[in-house]
């Protein structure tokens, strides 16, 4: 008899990782200041040893930074994924969270509301270029009091990731991907007609990912998940119905979504990497994974703007500051983040180095900047680009103009409800969409009421 275990699922369901504690001590993260005025901060999300190129780049950056700031010492922690919900709370509970810790956009509100992040509003006045970060991106890290609690690292918006080779094979033009959901349907049908186990369009329907994609697709149809006061479900309308009807028709009428459902991220990525999938909704951060883990190729993969003329779902990541950090540690952390993540030409934006290392340059994310910094960044990227970024040109252009909406509050629990809706539509031919939406709406209302 086996004792039940939470299973390992990185390559297949959830990626996981571990945090590396700095000091062995029972108490909080680390020593902070010493008498001579030097500061030590722990920073997580160092790339793992299985990613030697990025890891070396990160370590080199630390060396460069420490040389420029001799009184700051950085202790990196590697873990993958950098933000693992399974260890997040435990780390916080045990005081093991790093001084400067990595978060997804979706965690920010929760972390702030639980009082687990330091308010850095007064400390960021020295940060250059803060004004050139896109307002919506920076806004993610602002608390209800309007103060800043963290700094972004990347952002992404959802688009349509597609396989150029399959498009060509199906007689479609890989340079003009579908721009409306009707087009998606037509194209998916043609790709699925290629046979041989090839799927035209795939979507998630398990582990809350179905709900997440429903949200993205709802935004693209012009809908919203919750009302503006956050108290009521708002997806039981024409937009919501359009999303589901579209999926239903692709699944059952056209048969272009394949028979295997209850898919999650690794399932779909595996299909795409193996050349068995025409298109799916994704963010550009999928591209490196498809190439590294699933043996796809950059030449073949492209990303188009989200179909439909409306908004798209925004996401991203960044760093926040442990509420127990000393002011000196916060200052040090801000300086590090500024160097590594927010300085064009250095740190993560050191395109010259990336190109020399063979890392992909020219992917359409992140897209943090506006104004003159944006222009400079684009030029630098173009100069060193080594992936066919013309594949993604439309997406890049659209990113600047398309409205981006972030996830609703209490996203995960709402996604859980919508997961049921997605899986119903995709596994049950006789699913009644109106009924499903209405039931889901009632459930979400009761959830929101009980917060």
């Amino acid at each position: 008899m086996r004792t039940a275990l939470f299973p390992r699922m990185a390559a297949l369901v959830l990626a996981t990782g571990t945090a590396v504690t700095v000091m062995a001590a029972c108490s909080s993260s680390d020593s902070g200041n010493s008498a001579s005025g030097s500061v030590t901060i722990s920073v997580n999300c160092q790339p793992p040893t299985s990613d030697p190129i990025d890891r070396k780049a990160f370590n080199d950056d630390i060396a460069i930074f420490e040389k420029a700031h001799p009184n700051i010492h950085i202790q990196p922690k590697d873990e993958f994924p950098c933000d693992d919900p399974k260890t997040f709370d435990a780390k916080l509970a045990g005081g093991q969270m790093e001084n400067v810790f990595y978060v997804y956009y979706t965690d920010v509100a929760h972390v702030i509301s639980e009082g687990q992040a330091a308010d850095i509003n007064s400390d960021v006045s020295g940060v250059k270029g803060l004004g050139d970060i896109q307002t919506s991106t920076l806004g993610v890290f602002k608390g209800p009091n309007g103060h800043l609690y963290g700094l972004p690292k990347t952002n992404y918006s959802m688009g349509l990731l597609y396989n150029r080779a399959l498009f060509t094979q199906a007689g479609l033009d890989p340079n003009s991907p579908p721009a409306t959901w009707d087009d998606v349907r037509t194209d998916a049908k043609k790709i699925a007609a290629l046979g041989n186990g090839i799927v035209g369009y795939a979507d998630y329907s398990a582990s809350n990912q179905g709900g997440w994609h429903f949200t993205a697709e709802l935004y693209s149809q012009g809908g919203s998940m919750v009302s503006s006061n956050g108290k009521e479900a708002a997806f039981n309308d024409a937009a919501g119905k359009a999303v589901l009807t579209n999926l239903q028709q692709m699944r059952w009428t056209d048969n272009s979504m394949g028979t295997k459902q209850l898919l999650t991220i690794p399932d779909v990525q595996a299909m795409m990497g193996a050349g068995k999938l025409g298109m799916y909704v994704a963010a550009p951060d999928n591209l490196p994974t498809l190439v590294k883990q699933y043996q796809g190729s950059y030449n073949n993969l492209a990303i188009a703007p989200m179909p439909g003329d409306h908004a798209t779902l925004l996401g991203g990541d960044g760093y926040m500051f442990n509420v127990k950090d000393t002011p000196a540690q916060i200052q040090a952390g801000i300086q590090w983040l500024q160097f590594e993540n927010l300085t064009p030409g250095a740190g993560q934006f050191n395109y010259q180095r990336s190109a020399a290392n063979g890392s992909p340059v020219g992917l359409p994310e992140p897209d943090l900047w506006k104004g003159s910094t944006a222009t400079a960044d684009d030029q630098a990227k173009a100069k060193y680009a080594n992936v066919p970024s013309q594949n993604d040109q439309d997406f890049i252009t659209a990113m600047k103009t398309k409205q981006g909406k972030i996830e609703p509050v209490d996203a995960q629990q709402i996604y859980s409800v919508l997961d049921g809706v997605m899986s119903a539509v995709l596994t049950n031919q006789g699913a009644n969409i109106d009924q499903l939406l209405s039931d889901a709406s009632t459930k979400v209302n009761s959830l929101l009421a009980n917060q």
Partner: protein
Amino acid sequence: MSIAQRGPRSLASPMSLRSTQGKIVYWAIFGGMLILFVLAFLFPIYWMVSGAMKSTPELVGTPPTLYPHQAHPGNYATAWSDMNLGQYLTNTVIQAGGAWLLQIVLCTAAAYALSKMRPLFGRVILGGILATLMVPTQALVVPKYLTALDVPFIHANLLNSPLAIWLPAAANAFNLYLLKRFFDQIPDDLMEAASLDGAGPIRTLWYIVLPMARPVLGVVSIFAVVAVWQDFLWPLLVFTDGTKQPITVGVEQLAANLPLNETLAALVLASAPLVAVFLVFQRHIIAGLGAGSVKG
């Protein structure tokens, strides 16, 4: 050696096994079970081992292939070096080995005490131990973690130490219960005889009871090692130092940047030692049983 002579008599009578009809039935059942077992239990292993040798697109492609069209046995070597499996395996062996030892010693002692010595409050203690079977271990993970961070009274921090695996592993109610059950079956006469001969409870345990207990010790050992070997969430939490993690966590951590077939190869390599361990302990069970039924 005839069929019947190969082992102690059980359900089938020796006479029927000598008859021709009996032999036909026996071999038919034998063959049937063999095929069933190979299909049900060996085929997945084959699939896992051969899958690791496929290229990733072939691995995930549909329809799936029964054998690799282009075998890459080198995946195993690559996985070993890319994922630094040697280090992770060493960690796992240390953690599982220590947990096994501690569990055998502590649980056997406790089961013996509860079963044969029946101290005051023994039933209460047993009840408390069995009650832990009702609480799912995963749900306890965070409080357990907080305990490991700061052990009450001694204020030690067990993070990144194998003790964080060994000590909780010793609290295995199921194995303790198996042991106690076994000891319960040992007749009191035997214990009486031993004590009349002047042996105290400990001597009785060591010289008389333990040698008898080989079968159940074998079973308990297998369960103990497998539980620690396969555990994931707990080592994920307590080993923040990457070099100390066991193989389940280590492979997980590195998998995201490596091709899927390599990850599968790593998982195969991670399971292989378990099979070896099983064979070792499994023989122990047979040896213990084959030593004959102890009479009286």
